[in-house]
């Protein structure tokens, strides 16, 4: 069986999608000749030519806005924002047009645009290279937002995102680019809108996405060694949320910990907590606890491990809810 890194699996997803759909374009800053800062578009320009895979000037609003125009002309695009914070210049185009064009035109003009954004921290990056931009997108109606946590699921989610007639914000956990997984690449399996249980458990559920999934699995190991069997859920799809799975976890474990890197206030944890109140209040035996980044700007490399939820912080929260 082949072994894949996340970067390699995403690269293969783009390759397979480019092969299957001759009207698919891949472009952005440094994605062509260089193959992307994280090698996700490596070799694609050579294979598919500089008409289909190309570099752009440093113009994030321009990159996203041209994808909107290309969609009018019947082209599908995968565009890259080089790093999380560098997607902010394109927010106006995303919120005003990418998210709304289908509705505005009453379904006549779809926006099959995938916006890939290397996201989150943990790589000792510089300022603006470690942010968690998901809230800005998840709150914006008309978008879908997904985050893979493993190579094989990265392949699957990226293929699904590209195939989706709706725009998808595809957040790639930078810290996991070189993580490895064995198996066959397959676009089928859980779809956008579905989470997955990565570890069964009854005492509580640890809900996370991206890089924090691995930390939750580690925390579950720690907890297991203490006799607490924590379930671990990889959310995968932040918008739409897998309400069925959330409800099931609340019913079956009654105790929920949500983990993310983004600052706590109006991070995904808030929505998970509120949604669980909507759906399963009577099953909650403890408050939904949020283990998150602090409400501060993402810190410099020297402090990032004090910002990111640690295995110990996650385990501690689980102990707290389990003993509530």
């Amino acid at each position, binding site marked *: 069986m082949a072994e894949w890194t996340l970067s390699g699996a995403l690269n293969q997803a783009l390759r397979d999608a480019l092969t299957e759909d001759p009207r698919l374009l891949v472009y952005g800053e440094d994605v062509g000749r260089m193959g992307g800062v994280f090698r996700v578009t490596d070799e694609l320009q050579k294979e598919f030519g500089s008409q289909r895979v190309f570099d752009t000037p440093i113009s994030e609003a321009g990159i996203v806005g*041209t994808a909107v125009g290309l969609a009018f002309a019947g082209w599908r695009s995968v565009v890259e924002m080089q790093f999380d914070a560098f997607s902010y210049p394109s927010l106006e185009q995303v919120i005003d047009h990418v998210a709304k064009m289908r509705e*505005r035109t009453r379904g*006549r003009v779809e926006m099959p645009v995938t916006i890939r954004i290397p996201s989150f921290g943990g790589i000792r990056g510089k300022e603006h290279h470690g942010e968690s931009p998901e809230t800005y997108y998840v709150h914006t109606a008309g978008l879908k937002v997904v985050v893979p946590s493993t190579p094989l699921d990265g392949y699957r989610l990226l293929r699904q995102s590209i195939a989706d007639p709706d725009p998808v914000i595809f957040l790639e956990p930078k810290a996991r680019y070189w993580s490895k997984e064995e198996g066959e690449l397959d676009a089928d399996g859980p779809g956008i809108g579905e989470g997955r249980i990565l570890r069964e458990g009854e005492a509580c559920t640890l809900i996370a996405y991206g890089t924090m999934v691995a930390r939750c699995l580690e925390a579950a190991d720690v907890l297991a060694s203490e006799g607490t069997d924590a379930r671990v859920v990889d959310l995968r799809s932040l918008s739409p949320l897998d309400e069925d799975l959330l409800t099931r976890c609340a019913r079956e474990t009654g105790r929920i910990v949500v983990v993310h890197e983004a600052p706590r206030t109006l991070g995904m944890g808030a929505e998970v907590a509120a949604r669980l109140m909507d759906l399963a209040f009577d099953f909650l035996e403890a408050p939904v606890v949020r283990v998150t980044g602090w409400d501060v700007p993402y810190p410099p490399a020297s402090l990032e491990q004090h910002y990111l939820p640690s295995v110990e912080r996650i385990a501690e929260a689980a102990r707290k809810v389990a003993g509530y």
Partner: protein
Amino acid sequence: MLSAGRKEEVSVSETKMVQLVAPDGTAVGDTDVGLSPEALRDLLRRMIVSRRLDRECIALQRQGELTVYPGFEGQEAAQIGSATALGPDDFVFPTFRELAAAMVRGVDAVQYLWYHRGTWHGGPYDPRATRFGPICIPIATQIVHAVGHALGQKLDGLQACTLAYFGDGSTSEGDFHEAANLAGVFNVPAVLFCQNNGWAISVPTESQTAGEIFRRAEGYGFPGIRVDGNDVLAVYRVTKDAVERAHRGEGPTLIEAMTYRMGAHSTADDAGRYRDEAEVERARVADPISRYRIWLAAQGLIDGAFLSACEEEAESFALQVRQGVVETEAPPVEWMFDWVYAAPTEAFARQRREALGG
């Protein structure tokens, strides 16, 4: 005080503006723009009809039948001259002030006015069928769409181009710049058509930029040209050249059409708060309709009967549109939900049911 206007220091070549027919109706350039007598007459007819409709729309707003309406009086030549220069495969990305251009492209005026009635958003008509994009409010964002669309046309190897309309004020946005630079570097078949109507709400163009808009093109590596935007023949000619250039694969052109916003920014605006009525009176001299009528008459291409027919058509068209507008009902509540996503989730469907009171 903060405005500059120190143009003497800037070593630019003399400002030239393409003009074929002077405000008094006399020809000052080569007026043979390659249009048949019918087509020449049609330009006038369209200007008369659209001006009448514009005024009707303002009346409709005053009567509560439209929510807000941004008039285009004074800009008929800029819009109709340019839109007429486009071929059937070309595509337009407009702002919110191009009803006259929309009609040239065959957009149904009543459907267009759904927007200003608050019936639906910027895309009530079918943008693909009319090849006229949705009404676009966020300033300058549509210019980027136009460049993307033109890139698509280029990749498809089509002999077609995309025209973006935008105002003088729009050229101050980052999106204008990114669009223009991308158009240049990708060498796409795009026409960037600026209607410089002298004002962006209350801000006159000289407070918008210390430069001249058409000169921006040089910095992007493609031609920029200034045209008398109230001279419909000149606008047609200049746009036609740019369209043909684009069709030949020679890349983008920036056109700055000098015109004037005769009315307020919109029906919600009171231009008296910031603009001297005398300026408006001075601008009236350059009116696009009267000069062209004089020129056409001098060519013997029109007579009184033609003009009466135009006026009659304008009148009946305006009333027909009025009727269509007032008869337009609010859409059903489910429209809020029906096109947000291609395949809605159960959670979304639940909200929809809730909104429908179910």
